[in-house]
């Protein structure tokens, strides 16, 4: 599509620039470049949907500036706001909501697929936002222990495993190893029920659980939640009932910030 004069000036277009030695429109890998552009636009659209913004792009150009994909927009201010949010998410300065996470991961994967030595930046009207290398931004501990409220959806196998879903982990189920068959048998009685599990998990670079081991589990009591919790509060925290100003007590306004240990 031929670009208009307005688009050529870049005034009303958002650009995704691939930079690196010898990078030009004539030398880039077309599949990787189009994948990158497609994933970026999907990422921006998802952010815009979340923020209930109307993002409009129309047309496509490629500029010989290393190689820059040019996306003209009739609403450049909206496009810039969304692109800035996207950049903050990729830089780890803004949380990626779980509804945007899949498209963010797709774009990260497209970035990682580029040949070594190539980098990507987003060009707004007067601003250049270099996208940080994704491998070094999200530092995930390989293994950690956590406790989750989870529902058991499958259990079995000669080397027994259990498959759970947990609202704390989004919609994707995860599977963990079990120590022995008796544990699998005990769990079998709780199939499709919620329980509290303690698990040692391994996560991929995007934070999704990819493996793990069940360390302990507790079936829910079946008692009335409000009665149980109010009884717990009476035992563990009833001192609060005699405190007149709860907010003042919580804010510790009267307490010195410096703690001096006993001699």
């Amino acid at each position, binding site marked *: 599509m031929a670009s208009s004069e307005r688009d050529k000036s870049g005034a009303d277009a958002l650009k995704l620039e691939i930079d690196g030695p010898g990078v030009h429109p004539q030398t880039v890998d077309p599949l990787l470049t189009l994948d990158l552009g497609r994933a970026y636009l999907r990422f921006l659209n998802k952010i815009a949907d*979340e*923020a209930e913004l109307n993002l409009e792009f129309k047309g496509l150009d490629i500029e010989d500036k290393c190689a820059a994909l040019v996306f003209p927009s009739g609403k450049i201010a909206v496009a810039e706001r969304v692109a800035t949010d996207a950049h903050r998410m990729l830089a*780890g*300065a*803004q*949380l990626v*909501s*779980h*509804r945007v996470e899949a498209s963010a991961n797709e774009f990260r994967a497209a970035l990682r697929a580029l040949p070594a030595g190539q980098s990507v930046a987003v060009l707004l009207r007067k601003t250049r936002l270099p996208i940080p290398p994704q491998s070094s931004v999200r*530092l*995930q*501990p390989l293994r*950690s*222990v*956590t*406790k989750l*409220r989870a529902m058991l959806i499958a259990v079995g196998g000669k080397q027994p495993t259990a498959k759970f879903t947990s*609202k*704390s982990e*989004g919609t994707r189920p995860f599977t963990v190893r079990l120590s022995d068959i008796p544990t699998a048998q005990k769990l079998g009685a709780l199939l499709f029920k*919620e*329980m*509290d599990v303690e698990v040692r998990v391994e996560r991929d670079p995007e*934070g999704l659980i990819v493996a793990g081991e069940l360390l302990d589990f*507790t*079936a*829910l*009591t*079946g*008692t*009335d*939640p*409000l009665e*149980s*919790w*109010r*009884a*717990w*509060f009476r*035992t*563990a*925290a*009833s*001192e*609060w*009932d005699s405190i*007149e100003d*709860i*907010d003042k007590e*919580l*804010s*510790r*306004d009267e*307490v010195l*910030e410096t703690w001096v240990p006993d001699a």
Partner: protein
Amino acid sequence: MDSKSLPRRALLDTGVLIRALGEHPTDPRSADCRDFLDAMVAAGNDVLVGAPSLAEMIRAMAVPQAPSTNNIVVVPFDDQAAIVLGTTFPMVALKQLALKTGATLTYLKYDALIAACAIRHKADLLVTLDGRLSTQIPSSLRVASPSAFREKQLQLVSVDGGALVPPANGTKSSKK
């Protein structure tokens, strides 16, 4: 409480929990906190209790294990919550907020720990009586006070026969 507007999954701040679980008849906001918790459980929705809130609540030397019941879930401050805390509530931002609001840094750190638990465990809503952190919280997590879920009181007016009915209905019924 308006059961239709209740969140599916909400994390309750410590101040809300203390009022909702304890006995504070003279505290003006206790009724809202208690009613909100009761309504959430009655609706079968998830109430999350951040582990840092347990630490703030506990005032005894011998404490039983927190109950594992339906609907009310203790959520830990784990490695994933730590990543949320470090990226969403960096210390520089908390220090600026302390200067701006006059709150102590210790207090804000607890608030940030609790908000990080809410984000990490995918709560739809953080229920709090204190909005000091709200400027720092990403838009994916809503923040509200328990009173926001009170059913709106209809203004009653006197119509024919002395019966009290809402104004809109009153207009209609008087024409019949």
